[in-house]
């Protein structure tokens, strides 16, 4: 059994199969900041002042290092910054399958405290407007997700944490628990392969790949030697 879930869910599903130490380790696994997600339908592309941003797949809105560092610091203290750091993606500029001809999509989020239900739409749109005056007039549709809604959509995003747990120095090498193999649980035959294991969040499949290698070595040594 291999679980693409995070420690909290693994405890709920298979907790009774685990040793008390392993259960304790999973229970103290820490989740990090959440995200507030917004998707827009636009009548035209974002009217950035900067020509570079008009041709960029991703745009980071946050001005200086100091402003961004301050925004992330406040969030880690459980607050909502007035000028949040905002990440944007402009897929439809480069992929004409995303929106009707001449129209555009915009994808964005800002970080928020874990479990926050505050509606960040206004602060996020103000931040975009700051670098793209007239942005608000291009909006023809909008969809938002606060951290609760993201978790309801995908139970792996606990409190809106999209990395499956904090990747700080305490959990960089030991996610989800300090053991011989991070993918093995204390119960023979049960493994965890989600982004709560190394190397962590993002779409790369490396957590799953390493889990499978572990499973083959532990349980199917003959198959392990089958090279790909």
């Amino acid at each position: 059994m291999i679980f693409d879930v995070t420690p909290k869910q693994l405890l709920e599903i298979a907790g009774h199969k685990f040793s008390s130490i392993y259960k304790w380790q999973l229970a103290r696994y820490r989740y990090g900041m959440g995200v507030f997600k917004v998707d827009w339908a636009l009548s035209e592309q974002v009217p950035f002042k900067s020509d570079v941003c008009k041709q960029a797949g991703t745009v980071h809105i946050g001005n200086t290092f100091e402003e961004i560092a301050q925004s992330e610091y406040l969030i880690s203290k459980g607050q909502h910054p007035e000028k949040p750091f905002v990440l944007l993606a402009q897929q439809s500029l480069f992929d004409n399958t995303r929106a009707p001809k001449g129209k555009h999509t915009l994808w964005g989020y800002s970080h928020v405290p874990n479990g926050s239900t505050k509606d960040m739409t206004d602060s996020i749109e103000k931040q975009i407007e700051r670098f793209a005056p007239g942005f608000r007039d291009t909006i023809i549709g909008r969809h938002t997700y606060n951290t609760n809604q993201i978790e309801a959509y995908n139970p792996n995003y606990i409190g809106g944490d999209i990395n499956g747990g904090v990747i700080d120095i305490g959990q960089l090498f030991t996610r989800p628990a300090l053991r011989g193999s991070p993918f093995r649980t204390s119960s023979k035959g049960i493994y965890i392969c989600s982004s709560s294991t190394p190397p962590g969040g993002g779409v790369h499949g490396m957590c799953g790949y390493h889990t499978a290698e572990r499973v083959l070595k532990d349980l199917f040594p003959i198959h392990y030697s089958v090279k790909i």
Partner: protein
Amino acid sequence: MINHQSDYDAVVVGSGPNGLAAAIRLQQAGLSVIVLEGKETIGGGMRTAELTLPGFKHDICSAIHPMALASPYFKTLNLDTHGLEYIQPRYNLGHPFDDGSSAFLDNSIEETANSLGVDKQTYLDLFRSLVNIWPDIDQDVLAPLHFPKDPVALAKFGLKALTSASFFVGNFKTKQGRGLWAGNTAHSLQPLTNISTSAIGLVLSTVGHISGWPIPKGGSQSIADALASCFKSLGGKIETNTWIKSWISCLKPKQ
């Protein structure tokens, strides 16, 4: 519904990129594998849907895929033969400032560095060396702790990566260089004073200079669909609408 679990060597719960990668690797090794997904569609953080108006396709979670393209495992799967096409934007990243100027991350290290004023040489030295050693360390950086293939190269990366973004930013003097660094390290979802927050910024910029920050044609769902197609072509089975909320004894795979 789930009924024949014991016919399989392995059961994977969840069809995100990691669940599908694990399932494909096991199926490749000759095991019989079934993936159980709670939702009605597969993909985890790789789904695309019309969230706003008809005809507008939005990536519900992930959107930009530097790590999918740079993934040492996905590279071996020839996902293009399963319909996956990556598109490279003109600039990977734009970062605007209040004064109307902007910094950017281009595939070219030189072009990126040229836009950073007096930080040009610092940027060139840093990323030329990281781009050079990346092929020797990518497997190790993207893996659990173990003895590395090239310990010296990995140490060169590790000494920088383990610093905090706030410490490392001292290498940059210009607003452009510093702002660009802040945006890339903020992907760590932590205060930038935490140690090791430099790691994500270094990795994202380095792979940006090697393979770019692409978007998948049709949306992130295309990556999920290509992985599923690859898995099924090897004989793997997928069942959706199957939430595993508690332990079900029939989940025990045959052994």
